[in-house]
């Protein structure tokens, strides 16, 4: 089963085998092993998730949101996490971003164990190492786009001159200079999301976390945003971790982790495949996972 790391057409055959509960625990073991794929072996690991577990509730009423999840992300990777609702993807993202705490296991960012941080250290860590993009853009409605993008820098007390220069630069790269002096309610949803993307990357974070960033967008704007993330990833070597339930969005990534019932069900590596082909492969896995679910019923 350790070979479940593999990709492509084997998928269809292996996936059902991996689904039974005990077997599922084995599946992710390969997560870290298979990293050499995609030709990124040289890059250092930015994120290392080791056997994390998240349990909600009290003694009589336990919900296991994450059960022994392990995987890693290397610098410059664009990784997608897919799964149906309730599969634990948002919990996973919250745990990595330290917004939520894990029950057990460790999360290493740039080799540092963030699960052991005290609250004050966590705040600094979030500020310096992570960038966030949410489903609803989560811009401050009282600030202009320029001020929203500048916020992470001003919070870190970067000098005003440098702040403004970096905001301008980032905005240019994401093609949103014309909305810089508008308020969120004066922008379209797509523009808001791109402003949010700019805010996430203006600090040059180690890891950009995107939680369903296209969830509230129409297809045209979704495409624009995804191309934007792709460009960020390509030109800045920005490491992006994107949670989505949309196969189309996932097809822009290099690698997709599939989550089910709090476990890594399997993962797909894009390799050199064109986006359309990768999309088809993702759809296959989604179909299998969906079918499996209905079988189980």
């Amino acid at each position, binding site marked *: 089963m350790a070979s479940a790391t593999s990709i492509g057409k084997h998928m269809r055959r292996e996936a059902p085998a991996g689904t039974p509960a005990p077997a599922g625990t084995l599946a992710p073991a390969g997560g870290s092993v298979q990293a050499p794929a995609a030709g990124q072996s040289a890059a250092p690991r930015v994120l290392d998730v080791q056997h994390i577990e998240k349990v909600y509730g009290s003694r009589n009423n336990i919900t296991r949101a994450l059960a022994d999840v392990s995987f890693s992300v290397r610098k410059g990777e664009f990784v997608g996490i897919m799964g149906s609702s309730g599969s634990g993807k948002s919990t996973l993202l919250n745990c990595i971003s330290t917004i939520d705490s894990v029950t057990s296991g460790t999360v290493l960012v740039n080799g540092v164990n963030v699960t052991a941080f005290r609250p004050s250290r966590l*705040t*600094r860590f979030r500020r*310096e190492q992570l960038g966030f993009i949410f489903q609803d853009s*989560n811009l401050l409605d009282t600030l202009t786009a320029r001020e929203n993008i500048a916020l992470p820098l*001003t919070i870190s007390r970067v000098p005003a001159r440098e702040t*403004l220069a970096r905001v301008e630069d980032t905005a240019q790269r994401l093609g949103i200079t014309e909305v810089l002096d508008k*308020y969120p309610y004066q922008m379209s949803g797509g523009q808001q999301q791109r402003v949010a993307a700019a805010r996430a990357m203006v600090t040059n974070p180690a890891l950009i976390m995107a939680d369903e960033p296209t969830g509230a967008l129409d297809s045209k704007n979704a495409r624009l945003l995804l191309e934007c993330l792709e460009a960020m990833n390509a030109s800045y070597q920005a490491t992006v971790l994107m949670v989505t339930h949309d196969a189309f969005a996932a097809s822009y990534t290099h690698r997709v982790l599939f989550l089910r019932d709090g476990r890594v069900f399997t993962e797909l590596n894009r390799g050199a495949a064109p986006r359309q082909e990768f999309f088809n492969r993702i759809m296959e896995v989604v179909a299998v996972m969906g079918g499996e679910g209905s079988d189980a019923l």
Partner: protein
Amino acid sequence: MLCKIAWHNVRRAGRDYLVYLITLTLAVTVFYAFNTISVQVDIAGVSDQNAGMGDLLGGIISGLTVFLALVMGFLMVYANNFIMKRRKKEFGLYQVLGMGRGQVARIMALETFFVSLGALALGLVLGIGLSQLMVFFTASLFKTQIADFRFFISPSALITTVGCLAAIFFVTLVFNLRVVGRARIVDLMSASRKNETVKTRNTLVSAVIFVVGATAIGVAYARLLDQGLPYDGTPDGMREFFITTLTVVVGTILFFFGLSGFLLKALQAARGLYWRGLNMVTLRQLAAKVNTVSFSMAVIAMILFLAITSVTTGMSLADTMNNTVERGTPVDYTRCLVYWGRRSVAEMNNNKAYSEEEKTYAVADGPVDMMKAGEKDTVEPDTSDAHPFDLSSIAGSYVQVDTFDSTPRGADLPLVDLAELCDAVDMPLPAGTENSDMTMLGLMVITESNYNEYLKFRGMDPVELGENGYTITSDMGATVNDIYNKVLGEGVELEIGGRTLRPVQDHVPEDASTFQNAMMGMNSGTIVLPDDLVDRLDLPPYYSYLLVNYAEDVSTEEGDAYINAYRTYGDVTNAEGASIAGWGQEATRTTTYESVDSMNGLISYLAIYIGFVLVVACAAILTIQQLSGVADAGKNHRILSELGTPTSTIAHSVLAQQTVFFLFPLAMGVAHSAVALKVIIELVSLFGGLSIGGTVGLTCVIFVVAYGGYFCVTYLMSKGMVRDAIRARHTL
């Protein structure tokens, strides 16, 4: 069932209801405590010396309570709106689940009822406790001794308080039912989605509005300082004053309307400051809020202004009386005699033709011996006890001061008047004196020898006028005395009766100018002239004052008792039997002190009561506004936290915003008050100067503690709300 839901709701929404509860409890406490005044006055022994005081105060205060209950009622409606706004969705849910509107309304009513009941119980307990303590305060205000202290509960105060609370409850209820009754379910359900649309205004326009507002305020200040108050009530004066008032009101509103825009514009110019930490967030948040609350900030500034001004003026007036009463009551007993003037004699004799009266009136040839005049009066004339009102039976030392009209017999104009003196030293006529005696009738005149008798009686050194000397006495305080002092100091020469007179003193002897016991200055200007000059001028007598100190073997109580029992106001006639004078004011030292204490107590009481309730009302409105603002900004705080802002930094940003909201209206109110007080002081200082201190200071401390207390509560609660908002997870 509904009861159960309501009860659980109150407990769950405890924090929302807390401000409501605190304010209502405070209102009940204060209402009850102040309404027990008539009982307190009784226990404090005030009624022993001032029988009507309790009823008078009680009457005024219960009237005031109704007015203040009204203010509180509207405050409660406001507070309640805040709670309602946050719970619309919940009420929508009840209806979606099949509850009728009537039932939802009943839940609402029950909740309000529970909270009101809680506030009533808590407030009454506190109020009863406070009223016991207030007895001591009352006693010290009225300067009395507590004869027998006992625990008391005043049923009438209880009824007034419960009545007011019931009224507040019903007003609140009506408004709540309207909200529930009117709202459509779909609006209720989507209420939380759009709390408040962020309105942004052009900051440049705002900045201009701000400047216009500030200018208007400045103009109004200048106008008020220049024109003063329309004390004389002429239509012109009233119109000018109205314009000034309107300017300041409009200016205040514009000031707060444009404040945020101006702050934003000003700080954006300072780039290093603006793009630093959460400064821009703080400012933008402020701007977004100020847009919606600028009007209420202006109203609060005006209310604070009214509270500060009335309290300060009232209490300073009381304070002033306290300070001047010692100087104003030089002896044990004074009485005065008012001589009929030429015009009034003619008028009264004229009137006589139409009435049955036999009496004729005449202008006196000279002053009457007051000690002797009283002897002619018989007390209890038709009884065997009949005896004259003989002051000499209790008097030790005494002196009579005779002042003369400065308009000689047969002449029409006074020899010297205030306007003339003002011209001489190039000073304006003081506010409020245009139509006064000192301007119309001129200064009074007293002879050098008579004045020296008075000085000797008071144990002071005599003055030496010589051939051509004069001096002026007055105990009216700053404004008028400033003029006299300047006249004397500059050595202004007066041309009187063909003689050129020069001052022999360089300032008014204020301590040697009081001719009768009174709470405030009564001698508005009496010029001391050489005896021979006064004789030659042939002036008619104007006032005679008799100043009496009781004899060594007569105690104050015995002296006062004799006067209270036997004083009479018999006719004062000349040799032909014509009436030449009437008895004027008379006062023992004791009654003067007591009336000062009572007046002092009365004013202080009302000032504190009104001021306290208004200040609490303002603070409560601000608190509610701020808390609702923090609740609305919950999402923003969560985002900031996710971006890695330490919670303490977010809390600081909130603190900065709240400081602006609490401090600016207060600062504006204080500024308005300072200007208004300056004008008021000018007017009031005619009566002996206005001192701000003592009790006023204490009152200010109480107010600042109340206002500051609300500020602290607001901040602490906001901090909790920020923490909760951050803890809520951003996605699920």
